[in-house]
């Protein structure tokens, strides 16, 4: 599974350097598809649970949500450029340091004697990187699009942690969580539709949101 995790890490990092909301949405879409792959790779026989995972991760997170946001932002003619972090060497170094720190953290918290410890360390490290970068994106810019991207990155990081070694949720509970996630996404889309053009993508020194 390590190659999937490394791919996930690449998908986390690349959109930080490409300053458009389209790239960010593509990154989120790939994250959703990879999460689905990671979750379903060991499934031997189809079950209701695997069907729900298929709907939740690759279909909803990987395809529907990014497509919905793409449609809304395109209709709103949101400014193409949308840096999720400040486009300078300092921010990129900081992002690199966060990933490095996440790997150190994983090495420290996963017992070396654990079964498959290298794989678990990689999993925890990538999930921690996703979380740290999500928080970094969230805190870096004050435009609505980049903040929303930050929230979605954090949601994906939580899911990746869940896939690491946490007991599975029962089917009805998983269904409830998926429905709530969809409701949150619809609310996010509604904000994209309602908020002023200026607050969607322009990077301001001090927007109204920060006041």
């Amino acid at each position, binding site marked *: 599974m390590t190659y999937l995790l490394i791919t996930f890490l690449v998908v986390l990092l690349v959109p930080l350097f490409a300053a458009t909301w389209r790239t960010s949405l593509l990154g989120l879409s790939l994250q959703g598809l990879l999460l689905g792959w990671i979750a379903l790779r060991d499934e031997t026989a189809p079950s209701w649970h695997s069907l729900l995972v298929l709907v939740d991760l690759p279909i909803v997170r990987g395809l529907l949500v990014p497509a919905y946001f793409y449609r809304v932002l395109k209709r709103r003619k949101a400014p193409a450029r949308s840096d999720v972090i400040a486009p300078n060497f300092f921010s990129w170094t900081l992002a690199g340091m966060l990933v490095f720190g996440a790997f150190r953290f994983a090495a420290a*918290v996963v017992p070396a004697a654990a079964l498959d410890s290298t794989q678990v360390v990689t999993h925890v490290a990538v999930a921690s990187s996703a*979380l740290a970068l999500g928080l970094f994106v*969230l805190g870096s810019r004050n435009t*609505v699009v980049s*903040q929303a991207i930050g*929230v979605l990155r*954090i*949601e994906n*990081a*939580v899911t990746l*942690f*869940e896939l*690491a*070694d*946490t*007991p599975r*949720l029962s089917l009805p*509970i998983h269904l*409830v*969580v998926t*429905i*709530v996630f969809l*409701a*949150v996404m619809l*609310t*996010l889309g509604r*904000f994209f539709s*309602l*908020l*002023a053009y200026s*607050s969607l993508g322009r990077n301001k020194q001090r927007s*109204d*949101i920060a*006041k």
Partner: protein
Amino acid sequence: MRTWNPASASGAVDTTGRPASDASIAPALLVAFGLLSAGGAGWLAVTVHTDVPLVLAAGFVVVDATSRLFLLLVNAIFLGVATYVWSRVRSEPSLAQTIGRYAAFAVLFVATSNLAVLSNHLIVMWALLELTTLAAVPLIQHGGGDSVLLVSWKYFLFSSVGLALVSLGLVFVARAGGCTGHGEFSYFIVDLVTCEMRGGVWQKLGVLLLLLGLGTKLGLAPMYSWLPDTYEAAPPATTALLGAIQFNVALVYLLRVMQAFRSIDPALVRGTLLGMGLATMAVSALHTVAATKYKRLIAYAALNHGGVIAVGLALGGDTAYGVILYAVSNAFIKAILFLTAGKIRSHYQTDDIREVGGLIKDLPYSGAFFMVGVFALLGLPPFGSFLGELIILSGLIRGGFISVFSAFCVILTVTFVATGRAVFPMIWGESKKRVNWASQPLTSVLPKLLFFCALVAMGLYLPPSVNALFRQVAAGLGVSR
């Protein structure tokens, strides 16, 4: 800031025009729902007397002292807010235009709040708390323009991040496995409370994230900045719903987390809550000194209350009774003050403290309620907030937290002086705009009067059955296992 204010909606927001019947039916339905839910909560509080939690609906619903007390509180406040909305629509028919949508989301908000309080499953409770947030977004936006939209975005963003941290915390706690001697991790609260946690770094991290996430939802430092903005910009009825209902639903979640996970690392829980509580109180005091708008001032006071509750929860033990008393009083105080702020705003057409004066002469009822609310806010006797604060302070001394006690007292003094300096001229100062104010209908005064009675009762005399309920809730929290 607006009054409960589809007034601004009269033309500005919804020009489609709702059927005239909305005006009479929707608020009446809101009150009817409030009566029904308050009646149900009252019935539950009176009829269920068992010390053992009653688990229903395949284990997903729990009726225990905590859920009984907070259901009663949530629904009493909602009934008061619904009556306020009804009375406002009756006195100002222009407000009726978008009341149907508002009422629908308010019902959704309180229904999910009730279910969250009754929930026995930490993830279901999390989902319901998220749904209360989603239902609150249109309530905040109601009748507002772009600036309110941005404020509601900020509320939504902070809530989403806070709840994401909570879900990550649950993942971390569950990762360490079930109870000692058991296999699978259970998210059911009644199982967790009786469970000896394994401990370890993941569970400690999980508890930390749970406290941070719920702290965000409660408006505790460091992620508090959404609270004053939202409380100021939202319509008063919505602010009362957020401050008195959603705050307490999030608090119930925190109480459940404390019941279940405090034993993982009591020192970590204590240190985190003390730090967050004191930082919140300090931030609130600094902002109170500089506040120039009365609704914002009340919002900062709400921040301060959150801080006091966090400090009290950190101590546990006998202080838990004071915390519960303080939290329930706090809900009534916020409801009284925010609903009264709506009246003041509609009379003076300003948010500025300096432009309001002689309230007690201009608006005798509202002035009196504002005065009483401010006294209770400042923790003066004979209100429940005074007694609660006193118990928390004595807990600090008994626990040997002298430096925390000193900081607590200094911050409270600053808050007291700053609030009094700003608010007392509003109440007793020179009148700024004296008009013949029409007498207020009983439906407008009654909810606040009942809240006031509850506040006094909590300070002077609680009927034994209600007091026993408070003690049961405190007992569930008080002991660090």
